[in-house]
């Protein structure tokens, strides 16, 4: 019997495709539904943030860092502030560090809510997205009360933060946490442990621990592959050594370690850990005097030298490399972001996947287009 002839076809996915999480394009070569080759094409959201940094003062660049990753802007704020603090040897008061932890962990939850909701939606479940966004909405309100903005926060400052928490804020957050923790259980029943969802994602696009390290995956993507490593523990920056929390990792509970479900699961667990951190931080922040929120800054911010600072962002180890040459502006600023390296693995992992599974892979890596392109 003659075998059926198949022709490979070229398929253009994006740049305006709802499941590519922003303006990203993939050029696929497929044999029917099976991908033979996938070439990501990025850069549509390139705004030359690193070049802009060379034209702004150190403090003046802070609002631009919001745009590095606008789903989790707090981390780029913190990263830029830490790099400048390291460069200029600026101390950060304890209270400011706690406010940073609070703002960042709230932002981590809200960013993970987008990641989890969008991933469920990408593979066909619409309801979880609305549930997740409900929680994110509360967090946006809290952050708005903290700094006046809901998306591009511009909250952190070199040496501290811009505002202390308002009156009654702590109780509001605590009340919301009382609702949020059971809501995560509900969320798990709704989608995470849902049979259809598990079967859809288990054993899909497995990334081994070796591959994850080799490609420079960071954060939940790295931990999803079973590597127990978190910068908040490994580097003990800020006040994280004073806080208790676990590092959730993927264990292959539903399939193989490092599959799409593991990455989803790690993010669910991280939300719970962040909630734990928030409770402790809200408890401990008053050990430090009110309104002591900015450290002593140098009279002139014209540093000489270079520094590389890292923070654990919602999308993993974010690095900022800043070089000063005695001017009021940075000579060079560079952001190393989790989404950029996560995109790098897609070309290697996609041959053999179904087109629909590529959507699951992209969603499970939680790439955010502005963070890739900067």
């Amino acid at each position: 019997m003659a075998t059926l002839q198949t022709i490979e076809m070229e398929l253009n996915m994006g740049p305006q495709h709802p499941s590519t999480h922003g303006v990203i394009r993939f050029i696929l070569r497929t044999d029917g539904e099976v991908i033979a080759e996938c070439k990501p094409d990025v850069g549509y959201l390139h705004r030359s943030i690193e070049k802009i940094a060379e034209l702004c003062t150190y403090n003046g660049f802070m609002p631009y860092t919001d745009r590095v990753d606008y789903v989790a802007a707090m981390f780029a704020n913190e990263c830029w502030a830490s790099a400048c603090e390291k460069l200029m040897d600026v101390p950060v008061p304890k209270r400011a560090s706690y406010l940073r932890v609070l703002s960042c962990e709230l932002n981590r939850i809200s960013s993970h809510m987008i990641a989890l909701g969008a991933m469920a939606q990408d593979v066909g479940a619409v309801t979880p997205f609305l549930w997740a966004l409900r929680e994110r909405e509360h967090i946006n309100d809290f952050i708005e009360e903290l700094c006046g903005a809901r998306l591009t926060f511009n909250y952190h400052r070199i040496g501290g933060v811009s505002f202390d928490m308002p009156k009654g804020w702590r109780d509001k957050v605590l009340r919301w946490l009382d609702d949020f923790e059971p809501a995560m259980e509900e969320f798990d029943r709704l989608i995470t442990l849902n049979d259809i969802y598990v079967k859809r994602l288990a054993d899909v696009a497995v990334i081994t621990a070796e591959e994850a390290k080799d490609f420079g995956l960071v954060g939940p993507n790295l931990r999803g592959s079973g590597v127990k490593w978190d910068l908040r523990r490994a580097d003990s920056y800020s006040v994280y050594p004073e806080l208790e929390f676990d590092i959730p990792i993927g264990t292959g509970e539903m399939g193989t370690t490092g599959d799409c479900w593991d990455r989803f699961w790690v993010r669910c667990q991280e939300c719970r850990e962040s909630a734990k951190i928030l409770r402790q931080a809200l408890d401990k922040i008053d050990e430090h005097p009110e309104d002591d929120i900015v450290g002593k800054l140098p009279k002139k911010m014209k540093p000489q030298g270079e520094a590389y600072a890292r923070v654990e962002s919602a999308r993993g180890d974010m690095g900022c490399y800043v070089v000063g040459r005695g001017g009021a502006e940075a000579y060079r600023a560079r952001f190393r972001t989790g989404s950029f390296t996560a995109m790098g693995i897609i070309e290697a992992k996609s041959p053999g996947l179904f087109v629909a599974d590529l959507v699951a892979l992209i969603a499970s890596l939680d790439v955010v287009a502005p963070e890739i392109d900067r």
Partner: protein
Amino acid sequence: MKTEEIHQTLTARLGDAIGALHAETIDPWIEVQATAIVDVTRVCKEDPALRFDFLSSLCGVDAGDSIFVVYHLYSYALRHSTVLKVKVPKDTPVTRSVTGVWRGADWFEREAYDLFGVRFEGHPDLRRILLPDDWEGHPLRKEYVFPSHYGGIDNTRDYNI
């Protein structure tokens, strides 16, 4: 392990390929010859005392008439970090690709090529990544002049209208 000890370890294994140690900066760094960068990074990754299994960042920095390619390395296993720098002249910015050591270097090197024009020999697919393929020049170089046109379209504004 401190960068001073890393420098000693590397010098003991590779000799002249390892340049000076710059310990006076906040993050001490080691200068490496462009021709030796692949060997050096491979030793960095495989030596049991170093084990740099994570290429944290790779980027370019303009240094007047030359460009520094800066490698930030980190070891998950041993939890130490270091910085390597390769200096390449601006008119012939050629170095070797480390994609064979860490596959994650692929996109970083494309980015450095795009924004600084550094060519990485041995890179499997060295083309622009963030900017369009027909872009002229490498914007993060200090001598770069902002273009007034793109694709025949004027992008300057006349505010006197």
